[in-house]
């Protein structure tokens, strides 16, 4: 009952302060940024230049027929490309012939431009620029670093493709290109591709690009911030002598610390919901989500209390707390780059925090993992609370 009364009092005091609402304003700003600047789907529009050393009708036929089932080309506005004087050397890998080209003029090309749209998604996936000469293609390739291809008629009347490489590609990539471009291998490759059985792995149970940022926003913005906020609350109480007054009541140190933590949990939960509901809609399991958000904030607060308990002056603890926050953010790297997941990162508390929040947002969360992570967070939080209480008993009221 004392804990509840103290919590209500702390909430009342916090709600009369500027910072309480600043957290919600910050959450709203973060939400606007996520909605406006983080696309739901990332589409990489590749840019390619092509020179067709064949009659125009051939090019038109290519544009009409190529990839007809999977997409379509649409004419776009011409693209201006400025070319500077340049000396260019290139080699023909098939013949070993060396070509040296020297261009002394400056000019602006207006390249015929086509957009390629995916038939299934309607997304603009590629932009194709057409040059009118081999020289222009080489100069454009050097200037813009676009994939560049020459299409010409072979000896037997078949179309031949030549790709311009920049020399920086890996040997493996060059070999792969050679194999694919070699017309002798084409039937075998086509056959092999046709024989492949493609199975989509769990594409239903993933977060889109925008949604995938939510665990980071919740754990780092709302969770770890609690570490600093709870110490800020204690510092204010200590400097105003309020903790001395509290120390001379029957209220336990634990209740006092928990009441502060509960205020942070309240603001963290509201901030997290402000960000999450508009982005995720009804997809998440909100029961699990609320549980995880509360435990993430609780564990962060307990860690903050524990770290600060080693300092006689709470204000001087802030520098170390910020350092800990930065270290605890390392699992965000693993979250963004899953291939980078060393053991020491997976052992940090923020790793299961991020994974647990992510699970709660998925259409089909792994409830077992989430509950296991929650259990771990409860145990570790309780341990740090006990430890902090023990340490603060001696020093909080002094």
């Amino acid at each position, binding site marked *: 009952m*004392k804990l509840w*009364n103290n919590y209500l*009092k702390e909430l*009342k005091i916090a709600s009369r302060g500027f910072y309480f609402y600043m957290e919600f304003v910050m959450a709203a700003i973060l939400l606007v940024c996520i909605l406006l600047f983080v696309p739901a789907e990332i589409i990489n529009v590749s840019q390619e230049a092509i020179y067709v050393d064949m009659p125009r009708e051939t090019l038109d036929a290519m544009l009409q027929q190529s990839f007809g089932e999977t997409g379509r080309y649409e004419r776009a506005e011409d693209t201006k490309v400025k070319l500077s004087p340049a000396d260019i050397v290139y080699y023909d890998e098939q013949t070993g012939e060396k070509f040296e080209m020297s261009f002394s003029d400056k000019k602006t090309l207006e390249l015929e431009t086509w957009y390629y749209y995916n038939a299934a998604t309607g997304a603009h996936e590629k932009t194709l620029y057409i040059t009118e000469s081999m020289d222009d293609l080489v100069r454009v390739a050097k200037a813009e670093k676009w994939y560049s291809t020459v299409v010409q008629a072979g000896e037997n009347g078949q179309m031949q493709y030549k790709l311009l490489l920049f020399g920086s590609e890996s040997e493996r990539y060059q070999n792969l290109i050679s194999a694919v471009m070699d017309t002798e291998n084409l039937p075998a490759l086509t056959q092999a591709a046709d024989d492949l059985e493609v199975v989509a792995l769990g594409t239903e149970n993933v977060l889109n690009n925008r949604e995938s940022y939510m665990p980071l926003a919740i754990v780092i913005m709302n969770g770890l911030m609690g570490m600093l906020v709870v110490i800020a609350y204690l510092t204010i109480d200590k400097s105003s002598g*309020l903790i001395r*007054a509290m120390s001379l009541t029957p209220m*336990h140190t634990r209740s006092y610390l928990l009441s502060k933590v509960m205020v942070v949990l309240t603001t963290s939960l509201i901030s997290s919901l402000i960000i999450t509901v508009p982005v995720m809609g009804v997809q998440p399991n909100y029961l699990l989500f609320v549980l995880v958000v509360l435990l993430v904030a609780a564990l962060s607060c307990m860690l903050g209390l524990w770290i600060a308990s080693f300092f006689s002056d709470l204000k001087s603890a802030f520098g170390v707390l910020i350092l800990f926050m930065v270290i605890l953010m390392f699992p965000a790297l693993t979250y963004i780059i899953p291939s980078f997941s060393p053991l020491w990162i997976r052992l940090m508390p923020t790793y299961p925090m991020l994974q647990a929040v992510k699970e709660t947002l998925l259409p089909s969360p792994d409830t077992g993992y989430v509950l296991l992570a929650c259990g771990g967070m409860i145990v570790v939080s309780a341990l740090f609370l006990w430890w902090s209480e023990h340490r603060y008993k*001696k020093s909080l009221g002094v």
Partner: protein
Amino acid sequence: MIHVNNLSYSYTRDGRFAVKDISFDIKKGEIFGFLGPSGAGKSTTQGILTGLLQLQKGDAVVDGYDLHRENKKRFNRIGMSFEQSNLYGKLTAEENLRYYAKLFDVPTRDPRQLIDMVGLGGKENMKAGAFSKGMKHRLTFARSLLNNPSMWFLDEPTTGLDPAIAAQIKDIIRKECDTGVTAFLTTHNMFIADELCDRVAFIVDGEIKLVDSPKALKLQYGHRTVAVEFKEDGDVKKENLAPATGEGKARLNQIINDCEIVTMHSREASLEEIFIKVTGKGLTADETVE
């Protein structure tokens, strides 16, 4: 009510003690003054007895609770009026007291009645942050009575108050102690100690120099003096004479017989004068918490 035996305390734990091997007893219903200059060890002793500081060396029993054993329940019987006001500035005067009252496990007094008692009636709904220093001090004083304490710690209870309010506070202290409340009063103000305390302890450099009632101390160490202002050879002169001594008595008689008396007042030795006489040290106006 309080039993202290061989109490010592060091902030640095390096053999330098803020309080050195002090012992004293306080009876129930007594107002006990702990007097000394800044840094003498008053606040340290009070900190140990209230529980703000941990007991390091020696024994202390407060209201039946041995301070070697931690027991939060004892705070139901303790009241503490801090010298530095510590209130929630964003809460009103009444909210401050109502919230604090909820922290106790015992029946508490009506916050409005306490607010009226310290002369803040009509200011219940004003935020404590908007109070003057004196008003905050009175609210902190009122808060210390919320739980009907049997052991009441008062740290400079009239500091910063105007004389009228200070008199009101002293009156409250007397009335509360008349009902059986024991008060432990730390101050460097000898006048309030003289007026209120049943017994006083003089503490200097962490050591108690003596413990006795103000009256007994005056009898033992003070001399009644007469301050006389008179005209002699056309000039107005002033002298302080001790009529209890033969020399003083003779000089006083001589002045009365031979000179024109302008003013004459009898005067007792003050507690401050006795403190200086006993300890060899004066009291400073400023008080800081160790």
